[in-house]
């Protein structure tokens, strides 16, 4: 047994987190920053954080993840990191020549109390920021929230420091993307283009962290939202933010700053969340929903009607982030599956409320917890008390899956041991088909592996 010390007996823990279902803010900020074209993320703290965040993202994407660090020493920790950051900005623009540097703080610089606004001002006054180049920044103390909060903070930073309103409104909408894969961002663009919408998507990591092999390395690949587009986001007529935990704050800030009205939806995962997303998109962009989209939806519903008998009543345990988990739970329920255990390290009372709404009517026995005390150790203990037929979560779930012999679907961050998530979306109706295909594969493969010889069958 890999997790041989995990017991059925659940003791209350107030201070010890075991096997967390979250990580820290800066990694989210770093990922969001990669969705700006020509951007070099910068970690303001000791170099360890930066090294860890780059490694985590590199392992997840199997792609170059570049970022610089302020490389604090004990001295900077005592006297503050101002000179480190100013020197870093100077060096980065001279050596690595990005269009924009996106600085995020770390626990260390936050605890010291470094004031990023003032330091960046100082760098500007000192002529360290070349003409036409930009430095944006956000605060990402990891003792608040989770990696999702960090993503959200960096997206808000883009709005705060770049978006401008000229007073002339564009016939364009903003699509603010939650923390999803480059494949998902590509899929959202495909759907929006299919509908004829005129939009700016930000951040946009497609063509950044899924760059093709060409035999030459581009430090700043062709993808990412451009700075002019980000600036112009303040002139767009409306905003659709999808994935509330990661984007709603930015949408609110954009409304406050530039009077751009917004709608925030859940991530378009599964049938109904995608329905709501498509309808909002249609309304805000003032475009119709084409037959092609209706047909995609039809294909997804068709596969569910054909296959739901194999899924009906299957008990599912999930861990990950609120933006993914909420629509995923709704999707599983629509397929008559039973999401019985749900855990997220990301805090926020809204998640509990929304899950209650979704689960109470049909799966009243479901247990769910987020924020404090909600870790994978607890999830595993629940599973030990009463088993499940499917586990969904990031790569760390494989230890539970193997110990308990549960089919395991990798979704979320980080996925360290498989590929595909960068290229095949789980958003939209087509993404729904992929999720369904994967779940079916897992459940049917288990049946094929474990059925007796007389019961082993060819056809479905």
């Amino acid at each position, binding site marked *: 047994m*890999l*997790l*041989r*010390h995990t017991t059925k007996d659940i*003791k209350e823990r*107030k*201070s010890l*987190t*075991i*096997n967390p279902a*979250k*990580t*820290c803010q800066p990694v989210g900020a770093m990922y969001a920053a990669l969705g700006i074209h020509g951007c070099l993320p910068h970690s303001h703290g*000791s*170099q*360890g*954080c930066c090294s*860890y965040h780059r*490694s985590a993202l*590199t*392992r997840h994407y199997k*792609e*170059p*993840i*570049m970022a*610089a*660090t302020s*490389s*604090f*020493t*004990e*001295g*900077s*920790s005592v006297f503050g990191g101002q000179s480190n950051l100013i*020197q870093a*900005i100077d*060096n980065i623009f001279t*050596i*690595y020549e990005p269009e924009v540097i996106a600085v995020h703080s770390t*626990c*260390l610089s936050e*605890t*010291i109390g470094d004031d990023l606004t003032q330091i960046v001002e100082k760098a500007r006054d000192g002529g360290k920021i070349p003409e036409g180049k930009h430095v944006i920044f956000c605060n990402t*103390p*990891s*003792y608040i929230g*989770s990696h999702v909060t960090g993503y959200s903070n960096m997206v808000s930073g883009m709005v705060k420091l770049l978006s401008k309103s000229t007073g002339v409104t564009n016939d364009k909408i903003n699509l603010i993307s939650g923390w999803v894969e480059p494949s998902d961002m*590509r899929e959202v*663009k*495909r759907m929006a*283009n299919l509908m004829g919408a005129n939009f700016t998507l930000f951040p946009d990591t497609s063509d950044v962290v899924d760059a093709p*092999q*060409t*035999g*030459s*390395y*581009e430090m700043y690949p062709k993808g990412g939202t451009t700075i002019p587009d980000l600036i112009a986001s303040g002139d767009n007529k409306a905003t659709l933010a999808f994935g509330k935990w990661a984007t709603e704050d930015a949408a609110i800030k954009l409304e406050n700053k530039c009077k751009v009205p917004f709608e925030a939806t859940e991530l378009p995962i599964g049938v109904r969340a995608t329905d709501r997303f498509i309808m909002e998109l249609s309304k805000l962009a003032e475009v119709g929903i084409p037959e092609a989209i209706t047909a995609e939806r039809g294909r997804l519903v068709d596969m569910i009607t054909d296959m739901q008998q194999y899924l009906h009543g299957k008990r599912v345990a999930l861990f990950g982030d609120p933006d993914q988990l909420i629509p995923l739970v709704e999707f599983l329920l629509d397929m008559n599956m039973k999401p019985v255990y749900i855990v997220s390290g990301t805090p926020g009372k809204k998640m509990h409320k929304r899950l209650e709404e979704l689960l109470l009517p049909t799966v009243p026995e479901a247990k769910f917890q987020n924020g404090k005390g909600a870790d994978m*150790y607890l999830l595993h203990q629940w599973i030990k008390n009463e088993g499940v037929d499917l586990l969904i979560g990031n790569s760390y779930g494989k*230890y539970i899956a193997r110990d308990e012999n549960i089919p395991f679907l990798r979704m979320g961050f980080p996925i*360290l041991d498989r590929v595909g998530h960068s290229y095949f979306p789980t958003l939209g109706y087509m993404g729904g088909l992929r999720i369904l295909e994967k779940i079916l594969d897992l459940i049917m493969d288990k049946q094929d592996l474990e059925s007796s010889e007389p019961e082993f069958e060819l056809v479905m």
Partner: protein
Amino acid sequence: MSTDNKTNMFPDSSDLIEEILNKYPSKVAKKRAKSLVTNDPEIDQEIQSNIRTIPGIITQRGCCYAGCKGVILGPTRDIINIVHGPIGCSFYAWLTRRNQTDAGPDGENYMNYCFSTDMQDTNIVFGGEKKLEEAIREAYEIFKPHSIGVFSTCPIGLIGDDVHAVSRKMKEELDINIFGFSCEGYKGVSQSAGHHIANNGIFKHVVGLNNTDPGGKFKLNLLGEYNIGGDSFVLEKYFEEMGITLVSTFSGNSTMSQFENAHMADLNAVMCHRSINYIAEMLEKKHGIPWIKINFIGADATAKSLRKIAKYFEDEELMAKTEEIIAREMLEVQATIEDVKSRTEGKLCMMYVGGSRAHHYQELFGEIGMRTISAGYEFGHRDDYEGRKVLDSIKIDADSRNIEELDIVKDEANWRDDLVAKKTSLEDKGYGFSEYEGMMPDMEKNSLVIDDISHWETEKLIEYYKPDIIGAGIKEKYVIQKYGVPLKQLHSYDYGGPYAGFKGAVNFYNDIDKMVNTKIWGLIPPPWKNEPELVAKMADTAY
């Protein structure tokens, strides 16, 4: 550079160095210039190393905490390691180094778990000592471990939580071994400071707790071997066959009870000099146990190291057994070399990794005829480059001064006069103890030695040398492969290995052969690249 020559002298790299430095602001250029050295094995050359990374430079380095918790304490399975800090530091060190361990079907093994106090903002404001205390208590109540380690991260150091005081208090309350490490990420300039802090902590709190004789005729500690990809498992088999008792390994496939007993060994064999020489030296000072430098990366190096260990024990039967193992294992080694070398000979490699691997792996590449055109460490010190002879001349700067040097006194009750005498008599016969010559004397003339390489330097080196393969870490892997150059991860072995010992050497030759000779690199340009009439004129679509 042409890659078909097998013996030609490397070109003088001064134009490359100049091009690299030209891009830097002058202050940066001045600093970096001292860390780039065109090697000449005939003369003594100084390389600047173990100094702080310049802010804004994209570096490979991690932090002190990573070196302490991740590297040294990471591979020990029967201790609960609680990271005191916000969640991230603990999360990223969770199963991300490939230390395998074998606890048997029901031995204690906490390595698959991640423990954290998950500090929240109120804890940062009001202090987290109470929370840490409670976390230790909870861990004890749930798991009943016999040891708990506590690791302090950057914000903890700043708010001034005393992990040592809390550990002492809880040790008394729970009556198990509990100890803390002040390994905040800002200490020192790299992982290296964390190695030192970990060495100190284990030596202070664990080594020497158990005086039971581990038994056996020849008792050995293996130091600086971390069982990445199962390396230790390979070596353990050789020792077993030789009749050597492996008292402890620091720290691959290890347990706390091994450490407690480590002072009962007759010899310390040091593999990674950078990360563990401190314990070797402290064991000698306190107990009189001598140490030797060995290396099990490379078949020849393995044979040499096994012979050196056998020779120390001055036992005919042991030496005969050792020769038997070497002769047996070399058959497969030689057969593989013969096959692989025809495809790898004359190819060029570069390595930027760790504090000893960049040196050790040159042997393996050399055995299949590949030449190291450039190499450097991520967190090495001058002695790892230039040899221990420079130890006395190394200036201790402000960043290193704060790392404690333990004051070690002789333990009269557990002092090995016999080993001290043995050392003297063997030395008279020319047997070398406490020696490490470093990497640079082993490298070819005009090869380029670089400490703490930056991303910019890596790019320039690839353009200039066009190497056939590079050895580095995960952060570099996909950058370098985008250039069409394969990268072998030398921290995690790309999830392959083991690479230690004879078996490991054979694995490595085959893996490198596969990487440098894979057909996929030839498929990078699309077949229509030179047929413009086939390329659409349409602009890119929006998705």
